[in-house]
């Protein structure tokens, strides 16, 4: 189609893409750099995260220039993004929104967010982030979000079941498969973990860990590789686990999944740092205290990990007071008071340096059988660099999820990633984007 129509900023902006974020100090051609003036006013803040009402209240109490009205919205899976996106398009969105990393480029691409440049104090915020997290919130020369959590993918196991199977914590995927076989030998009904067809982001994380690059840019074209070599390796491997009944195909967070964790039919969870509360909630009543441990995700030979989940804070297009919104975002993403105000809502792992110890203090990890935060630290240090999310994650997400629907009736993981690839390419082209396969 008419792809060359808008060469404006977009091309050159993205060309120097998110990957090369080191040069963040160059002052872009952004207007109104007025961080010195003290913004005032009332702003609204939407989030689906637990405890954010308390954070907003703490911010209101800490100063009297900006007043934040907090509203809880459903999470992304339950229609939160649909609500947010529609509201922004209609012009009555919040000033500050919470968006997860995979969805962020999509909101940017739809023109629904305002760049933070000029409103935030870059030296005190963005510049202190790790390159991997910076890459998730910067597009071109602009920063569109401040990251909240940086969620490393984590493997959770029932230690007692591993012991029963006579295996130690698997460090490679090969050991993981062997552990699964040994578990089957002692308990034929048990699964080592589950494969979640509803979580395309988990497949993305597993592929990311293996070195895949689902999205990238080449000049002014997107390069889409949802079925690249690394992903195919991952898909083939998981198909093998499914075929051997080492992992159970089931929706995560479903009643079935909860029941299986509680009954011990499934003895592991492939999740992230934030999975702790969910595991505790579902297994506490079955007397599994002290048996769950966190472990680094098995790898393909050398330690590697990927982010699975995590949210960022943004200023939407609807905001008429971006300066005040930026002040609040800085508080949300970088202030220790914000973290402690949120209280014990989960085992958060935060992107901004120095905040995680506060979250760790707030979280009661006594349910778990090992020092989960030291595992998180190790996992965080091995995040594979170079990953980028595409301009419309929902196309890929939906296509992959839908293709996974056939897994219970003879469908294959490998076919699913192929389907997702072609659906993504077709979908992006339909929007007029330039795509290379």
């Amino acid at each position, binding site marked *: 189609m008419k792809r*060359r129509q808008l060469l404006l900023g977009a091309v050159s902006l993205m060309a120097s893409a998110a990957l090369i974020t080191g040069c963040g100090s160059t002052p872009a051609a952004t207007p109104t750099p007025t961080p010195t003036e003290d913004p005032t006013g009332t702003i609204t803040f939407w989030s689906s995260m637990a405890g954010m009402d308390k954070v907003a209240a703490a911010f209101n109490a800490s100063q009297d220039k900006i007043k934040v009205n907090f509203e809880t919205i459903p999470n992304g899976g339950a229609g939160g993004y649909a609500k947010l996106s529609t509201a922004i398009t209609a012009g009555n969105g919040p000033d500050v929104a919470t968006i997860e990393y995979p969805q962020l480029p999509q909101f940017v691409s739809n023109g629904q967010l305002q760049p933070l440049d000029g409103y935030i104090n870059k030296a005190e915020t963005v510049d202190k982030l790790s390159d991997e997290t910076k890459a998730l919130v910067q597009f071109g020369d602009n920063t569109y979000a401040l990251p909240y959590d940086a969620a490393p993918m984590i493997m959770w196991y029932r230690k007692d079941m591993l012991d029963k199977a006579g295996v130690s914590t698997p460090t490679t995927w090969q050991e993981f498969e062997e552990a699964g076989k040994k578990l089957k030998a002692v308990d034929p009904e048990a699964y080592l973990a589950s494969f979640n067809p509803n979580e395309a982001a988990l497949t993305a994380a597993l592929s990311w860990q293996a070195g895949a690059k689902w999205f990238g840019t080449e000049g002014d074209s997107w390069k889409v590789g949802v079925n690249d070599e690394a992903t195919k390796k991952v898909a083939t491997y998981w198909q093998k686990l499914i075929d051997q009944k080492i992992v159970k195909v089931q929706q995560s967070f*479903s009643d079935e999944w909860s*029941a299986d964790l509680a009954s011990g039919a499934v003895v592991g969870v492939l999740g992230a740092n934030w999975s702790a509360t969910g595991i505790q909630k579902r297994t506490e009543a079955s007397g599994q205290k002290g048996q769950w441990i966190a472990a680094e995700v098995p790898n393909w030979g050398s330690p590697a990990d990927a982010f699975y989940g995590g949210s960022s804070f943004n200023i939407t297009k609807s905001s008429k007071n971006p300066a005040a919104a930026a002040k609040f975002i800085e508080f949300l993403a970088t202030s220790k008071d914000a973290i402690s105000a949120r209280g014990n809502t989960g085992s958060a792992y935060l992107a901004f340096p120095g905040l995680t110890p506060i979250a760790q203090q707030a979280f009661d990890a006594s349910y778990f059988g090992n020092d989960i935060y030291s595992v998180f630290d190790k996992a965080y240090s091995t995040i594979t660099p170079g990953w980028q999310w595409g301009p419309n994650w929902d196309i890929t997400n939906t296509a992959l999820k839908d293709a996974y629907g056939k*897994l219970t*009736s003879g469908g294959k993981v490998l076919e699913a990633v192929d389907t997702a690839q072609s659906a993504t390419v077709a979908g*992006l082209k339909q*929007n*007029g984007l330039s795509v290379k396969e």
Partner: protein
Amino acid sequence: MVTPAPTKPPTATKPTGPAQRKPRAMSGTGGRTAALFLTPFFTIFALAMVAPVVYAIVLSFFAQQKSGLGFGEAKTAFVGLENYLQVMQSESFVGGIGRLALYCLLYIPCMVGGALAFALLLDAAVARARKLFQLLVFLPHAVPGVIAALIWAYLYTPGVSPIVSVLETGGISLNFLDNQMILPSIVNIAVWEWTGYNVIVLFTALQAVPREILEAARVDGAGEIRAAISIKLPLILPALSVIMLFTVIGTLQLFTEPSIISKATASVTSTWVPNMWAYDAAFNRHNLNQAAAASIIIALMAAVLSWAVTRFSSRNKA
């Protein structure tokens, strides 16, 4: 038929000589009064029904076109029927229509047949505790659709469902949520939800069947079953066609049940039925124009089908 005959003479006698002027005078003020009473309806109808439809039609002829990496401003361009073509060429949309057709094939006979059977039973002379059964049959309809879907999702989920575990102890292992069973499972929810409502409609129609005709039939030696088939059934045909009309339109709007169930199983995809396809286009893929085109197509299908149903049933009557 026979029944309207006795009422005819009085109406025929009314418009005589002097009275003939009156209706004209009445129609003058009556028109004004009618307009007064109809205005609120048409205002709301225009705002809440006509305007969105027109807007959707307009939207469906345009597209948001981006270029390059898509980070620049999108451009709105007139694309004619391209959105409609894309929708009709979409495998998942066409697949959804097929699924819906299959659903109709299972659902309509089950639900209408069930409702008819219940209504005739309630109307049968021998029926006891009529009020109680009426209530019991109607009760599922009082449960909101979302709640009903949640309850059934629970009853279908292996590992938590008492039904599944009872079947398993009986040696029957059945996964209500797998690819083959999911359609019947959703039909079951809809039948459970809607049969009671339609029983009430049909039962009311049955109550209006003139008793003297039934008595005449009985005198002629017709039993309960014969009376039901040869007398009651033809007389409630108009009610039955109304039910069919509502059911067909309702079926095209299938959305709540599958979208709730999709949380429990991957068998229900995000574009499982046309309405879900439109929702996915609008809110997941952010393609409002395509969603508008899909919605118009769904509306047209509903229009054609309802025309077919009314046409078919009015021919039957004649």
